[in-house]
């Protein structure tokens, strides 16, 4: 538990988009998928997922429809819209730039300056 990392603010949306980009998922499924693709390294409060999901729906990045889950229960499934797919590409590129910049800043050696 303690080796899980706190989520940086604003990154939950990106994770949701990424999780859904692989295929339509319901809320609990998204959580499982994030755990799976991140190697269970991130700490996400379960309920906190939903305000994020609804925000993305409101922004038109996700669309939702009711369906039946693998457990044979009613659940709401989310998938990416075109805008969502575009946003995911942009955000991923941004994130990579940021990580590269911060990484190089942190690993810089005194003699390189």
């Amino acid at each position, binding site marked *: 538990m303690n080796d899980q990392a706190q989520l940086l603010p604003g990154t939950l949306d990106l994770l949701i988009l990424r999780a859904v980009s692989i295929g339509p998922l*319901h*809320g*609990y*499924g998204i959580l499982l998928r994030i755990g799976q693709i991140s190697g269970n390294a991130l700490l996400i*409060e*379960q*309920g*906190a*997922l*939903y*305000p*994020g*999901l*609804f*925000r993305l*729906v*409101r*922004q*038109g990045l996700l669309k939702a429809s009711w369906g039946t*889950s693998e*457990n044979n*229960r*009613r*659940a*709401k499934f989310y998938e990416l819209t075109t*805008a969502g797919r575009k946003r995911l590409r942009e955000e991923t590129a941004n994130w990579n730039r940021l990580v590269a910049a911060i990484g190089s800043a942190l690993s810089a050696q005194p003699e390189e300056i």
Partner: protein
Amino acid sequence: MRLIDSLRVRIAALFHRSELNAEIEEELRSHIQHRADDLERSGLNHAEAERRARIEFGGHEKFKEESREALGGTLIETTFQDVRFSLRRLRKSPGFTAVAVVTLALGIGANAVVFSAINAFLLHPLKLSQEESLYAVWRANVTSSESYPDYLELRDRNRSFESLAAYSVAMGALDMGENPSRAWGNYVSGNYFDALGIRPYLGRLIHASDERGPNSAPFVVLSYACWHNKFQDDRGVMGRKVLLNKQPFTIIGVVPPEFHGTLLFFNPDFYLPMVNQEQTDGVNVLNARENKWVFMVMGHLKAGVTQAQAIADLNSIGSDLQKNYPKYDGNMKFSLARPGLYGDYLGRPIRAFLGGLMLLAGLILLAACANLGSLFAARAADRSRELALRVALGASRIRLLRQLFTEALLISLMGGAVGVWGSIVLLTWLSAWNPFPRWPVGVTVTPEANVYGVALLLTLASGFLFGAVPVRQILRTDPYGVIKSGSTRPVGLRIPLRDLLLVAQIAICAVLVTASFVAVRGLLRSLHSNFGFEPRNAILADTDLSLGAYRGDQVPEVQKRILEALETIPGVESVGLSDWTPLGQDADSKDDLIFDNEAADLRQGKETFRADMFKISPQYFRAAGTAMLLGRTFTWHDDSSAPRVAVINPEFARRIFGSVTGAMGQYFKMREGARIQVVGVAENGKYDHLTEDPKPAAYLPILQSPTGETWLLIRSGRDPQQLAASIRAKLRDVDAGLPFIIETWYEGLDTAFFGPRLATQTLGVMGVMGALLSITGIFGMAAYSVSKRKKELGIRMALGARRKEVLQAALGRAVKLLAFGSAGGLLLGILASRVLALIVFQATPRDPMVLAAAVLAMALVGLLATWIPALRALSIDPIQLLREE
């Protein structure tokens, strides 16, 4: 595209609120069930799996709320919720709501009234189009009066004004066939209405083309009010003839209802062409260059002409006139001023008065906000447990604040609505109010859109102001601390500024209460003091014989006939006649120069003193109830062929002859030079003002100084109404066309009592307002301290404290502030009464009744304000309190 989507979702959210809530609920539940399924699969039993799933999910309600917010549409929704919730809470505490609404209504109402007055008097006094370019021509900053020939020269020779119009004041007996009545009007130049841009409401108005020499335009234009009241809205009166001072005039039109002439507060009944002045006045002054009877000359400046250019233009005409007519036209330097307020003459006092009122109204509103602030703080303190619980359950502080502000704004909007409604009622009443029915005085103030706008702004601003007081309290709310201990922090660390404000309010209230009691007592006493005449059992009837077109020798003849007729009324003890009555309408304008017997230079400035002069009939002293001290009164033989005689008062005797007894048979002179012998002395009296020091006065026989001004004094013990009817009948027998005003002598003193009465009423109103504010202030503070110390009081009670001790602990501070403020206020009030004594006769604070009443009133204020908090403090049930906390 995204915008539309987002809008759609928001709108859907708004309209399908319950569906949406159910959907969110279902989705969250589905999540928990999926998790529980997983946990069950990993080996937990069903119930345990569900429990774990719920715990892992976290704050269910909180996420639901956040989800709703994330979906949008919640701003309106939560506002609705807040409003509903606030209304429910306000309904539960009607006492608080009423106090808060009344307090704010007072503040907003006062401001709305004052702003309406400013709007009506200073911003648009005449309600004319393009009022900003309308100027009156002023002469040397002193007067606006001109002679008619001078007006014509100014009108025809200036190049700065569109059209220079003029008006003057006219008074006449308006006779429409029966019951002639006195009416006031304006003589207007032919171009008057066209220059001001007034369109007729009915018929036509007077035009410049009507002026074809003296008495060429026997037309009259009526005011809307006159047409409405005296002609019952009859459209058929156009073209009909009416008599003005017994001269025929044809009604040609009616001006629109919103036009009340061009002098604020003076609302003429009719408008006559200036060229017909001789017809009503009996003398022609159209060519008299020395007679400056044209009251005001005014016009719109031409586009592009500056004030300085216009003044230069007028001055060049002026210096020409000065050269041509050096005898009449002295220093002809002109200036421009606003016509509606008669330049600075009315303008300055009104501006000062309204400025003072505005300040006062602002202070009232601020005090109201301060008091409401402490009331709201008390309420927030009462709710501290509830608020803490809500914070603990995940409500954001912003959300709580929004709710509090919703409540504050609701209160302020209700208060504002009540206040504006009250101000409209007050202004309607004020517009119909005429303190001097004899004159066409009117104060027309109608609240307009900008007034409502200002009231709304003030309302919202004050809502935020007093709503903000408990903000710190809420932001500080520490949920765990409050729930554990029941109270946020120790008592007693109140902001002293608020206490200071409260003391100041109480002190001002006490000043006003004391001063109004002093004024009331003074007024009551002065009604029954000795004026040097006896207003009880006397009736006045007055007219001016010029209204009946009587001239010269006809005047004393008619006066004698009237006196004889009235003496035949059964029950009448005596009938006297004078050209004015002491403390009456014409007081202040009836003094004349007195010279001693040896004086040779009889010019103004060389007089021995000025004395009030009465021109009276022989029976005057009996009818007035003025005692003769020495000598004789007049007879009808003291006429123009007999030697001039006078009766004087002791003050007159003392000043010119040194003693009363030495005055008998002595002589004095007046301006016209005749020696006048003193034949009697009558007691001193009050003549011009109730508060004046003894003034010299003299009485002259009416036959030796004839005048048409006729005041009849009828002394009788009969019922005034019946008597008035018989008097009217007798007067009609003498001349049915002569308008009389009949009133009791007490009514005749209304002018003299107007100032003191108004001062007393104003002080009374302000005293009540001050008391209301003090009550809400003390109430708020006491309620707050009881709420905060509830627990402490409960423990004290549990430990055996008596009711008295509980009350002392709960309200001691409030009572102390009240006592402190009241004492200070009483002292100040007593000091202020010295000023009051200048207006109200016999106002003295050294009166045990007044002091007792003021102390009693302040005690009552305290009792009212602390009643509910005291009941609450006493009703604390320690057992319940201990269980709760």
